[in-house]
């Protein structure tokens, strides 16, 4: 507690200073409202309430995977990702505290904040929707879902942190771990899920609790002990590729710098695949285990393209984590040129990665109806990029924690995403019309995104 309490206080002050106490404190309320509306839509689409509760657990598990993946960029995180604002995490430099302990407490602090900011409002939002659709809500039921959701998140964090810890020992080990996990899931026919918080949710008892929570403890403790914090102390050298890359990007020197920042920082290009792949994982899971295709979405290729477009926000996050406006204060460069270079970098990184997932989805999982998805993907991505840049400039990582801004951002994304999802559902009865609508609507969205990007250059 001696470290945890000041870290919690530090985190609060860091964000409340940026957005005001009310702005940051209201964030859970925004998550609550957005979740409630989304749940309403999901249930109205025909899903049952238990399916919704399971779906929330899947989603937060993948969110946990995403959060824990910070361990993959551990070395560069210290200077570039966490930044000098998270001073207490560096206590081991000056105080008799081990680095292992300070990092562990830092992760616990993050779990507490994620529970407060996202997970608790996600669970509480189930209550009003349950009244409307199910009619039975009990305190014990809500508590059960709360525990399961928080545990699912913690499991996600623990698993990806363990993978990152393996990566510090041997970069191929995480892939082996993923292969073992996927094989176990496949050959046990999902029975492995009994050893997750989902098993506890399905059949709550002391035994299932022990079975569900033990893996969290095992992965966490193993991760902390396997993690090699000293890895990578050597100086990294590279041959000079800047001129070739600049020429490849048609003379865009700033964009060449940004691409090098992205690909040379810890985690390399894989961190991009991982962050975009989180939604891919959710979607595949829903298709395989919730039978999404059979029940609801007639054109999953199209729905998946929209999801991928939304997930490219994470690419813009990564671009800005390692490229800061301060890099240009001594040079004759203005913010217009920097934003333009970010757009080029975003395009050359996000579009190929998103297409790769789209084709994997179609080829391996048979998402189908790819033609509309192929066209919609870049158009919807242009819209998402324009909105993100217009609202957050070059600081999406920080500004999207502001309640008001996050609400506007979510609304802007929903306005375009929902009609496209509806088109993917309507595709069953009106295939031609739905395809034309999706392509036309996303084309208009792309124009809006382009205009917003132009305005962003003036705004920032």
């Amino acid at each position, binding site marked *: 507690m001696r470290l945890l309490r000041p870290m919690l206080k530090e985190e609060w002050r860091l964000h409340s200073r940026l957005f005001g106490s009310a702005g940051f404190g209201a964030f859970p309320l925004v998550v609550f409202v957005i979740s409630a509306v989304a749940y309403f839509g999901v249930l109205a689409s025909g899903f049952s309430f238990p399916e919704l509760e399971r779906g929330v657990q899947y989603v937060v598990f993948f969110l946990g995977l995403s959060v824990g993946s910070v361990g993959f960029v551990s070395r560069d995180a210290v*200077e570039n990702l966490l930044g000098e604002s998270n001073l207490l995490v560096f206590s081991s430099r000056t105080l008799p505290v081990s680095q292992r302990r300070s990092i562990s407490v830092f992760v616990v602090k993050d779990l507490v904040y994620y529970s407060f900011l996202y997970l608790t409002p996600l669970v509480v939002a189930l209550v009003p929707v349950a009244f409307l659709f199910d009619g039975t809500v009990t305190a014990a039921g809500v508590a059960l879902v709360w525990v399961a959701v928080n545990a699912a998140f913690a499991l996600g964090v623990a698993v990806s942190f363990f993978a990152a810890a393996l990566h510090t020992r041997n970069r191929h080990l995480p892939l082996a771990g993923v292969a073992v996990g996927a094989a176990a899931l496949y050959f046990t026919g999902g029975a492995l899920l009994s050893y997750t918080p989902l098993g506890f949710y399905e059949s709550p008892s002391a035994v299932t609790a022990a079975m569900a929570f033990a893996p969290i403890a095992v992965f966490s403790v193993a991760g902390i002990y396997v993690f090699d914090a000293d890895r990578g102390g050597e100086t*990294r050298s590279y041959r*000079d590729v*800047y001129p070739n890359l*600049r020429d490849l990007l048609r003379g865009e020197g700033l964009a060449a*710098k940004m691409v090098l920042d992205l690909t040379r920082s810890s985690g390399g290009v894989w961190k991009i695949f991982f962050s975009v792949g989180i939604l891919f994982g959710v979607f595949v899971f829903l298709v395989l285990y919730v039978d999404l295709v059979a029940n609801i979405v007639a054109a999953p290729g199209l729905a998946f393209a929209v999801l991928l477009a939304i997930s490219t926000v994470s690419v813009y996050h990564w671009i800005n984590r390692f490229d800061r406006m301060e890099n240009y*204060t*001594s040079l*004759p460069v203005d913010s217009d040129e920097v934003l333009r270079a970010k757009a080029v970098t975003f395009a050359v990184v996000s579009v190929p990665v998103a297409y790769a997932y789209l084709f994997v989805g179609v080829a391996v999982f048979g998402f189908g109806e790819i033609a509309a998805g192929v066209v919609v993907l870049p158009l919807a991505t242009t819209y998402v990029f324009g909105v993100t840049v217009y609202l957050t400039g070059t600081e999406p990582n920080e500004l999207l924690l502001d309640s008001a801004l996050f609400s506007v951002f979510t609304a802007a994304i929903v306005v375009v995403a929902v009609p496209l999802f509806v088109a993917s559902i309507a595709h069953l009865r009106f295939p031609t019309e739905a395809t034309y609508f999706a392509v036309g609507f996303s084309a208009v969205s792309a124009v809006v995104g382009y205009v917003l990007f132009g305005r962003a250059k003036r705004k920032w």
Partner: protein
Amino acid sequence: MNAVETDGLTKKYGDLTALDGLSLEVEEGELFGLLGPNGAGKSSTIEILTGQTEPTSGEARVMGVDPVENPVEARSRMGVLPEREDPPSFLTPREYFEFVGDVRGVELDGSVDEWASRLGFDDKLDSISMDLSRGQKQKVMFAQAFVHEPELVFIDEPLTNLDPIVQERVKKFIVEYNHRGNTVFLSTHDIKVAEEVCTRVGIIQDGKLVAEKDIAELKENGEDLIDEFMNEVEGRA
């Protein structure tokens, strides 16, 4: 002609007044030192003059250009060594200089190796900047301020983190660069360094210019800059 002019420059951050009507002039060809205690307003002055931030009120001109209205044009005519800036983390120094050359529209070719050799980071040219020591990063940033040979250079605490041998080389270079007719605007806490290299200094306190001293005159009169500085600053504190 003046290389740098400010008139009534004021900069406020909320309730804090960093600069309070600062007016100063630096002629072309001078090696001017801006001295002051912590929080006196030195970095704010440089940030405004290099177009990194806007003043609350007042005017500034650098080589005849308004850095507030035309920050990019102003920075294209000068070199800047900021106090707290590192080279981009994941570019090697060699790539960073190519990038600087691209942005400034100049061919650097051999001068990169020359600079690396002069400051002693030639064995680090292909290591990513993030992995360099603080001193090596400072050397790279110092070199990027001069590598295109600008007529005016702003350097903020140039000797921080450098070892004594490189400090001597850097001081010698700054003086030689000034002798070639270029203007150098140096901001520093280090009064001994200012006395050693500058032709004239301005002392700033609480955002105001409280004194200007000609170094040659001081030396002629057998006066010590540190005594003058302490009198000006402590006498007003």
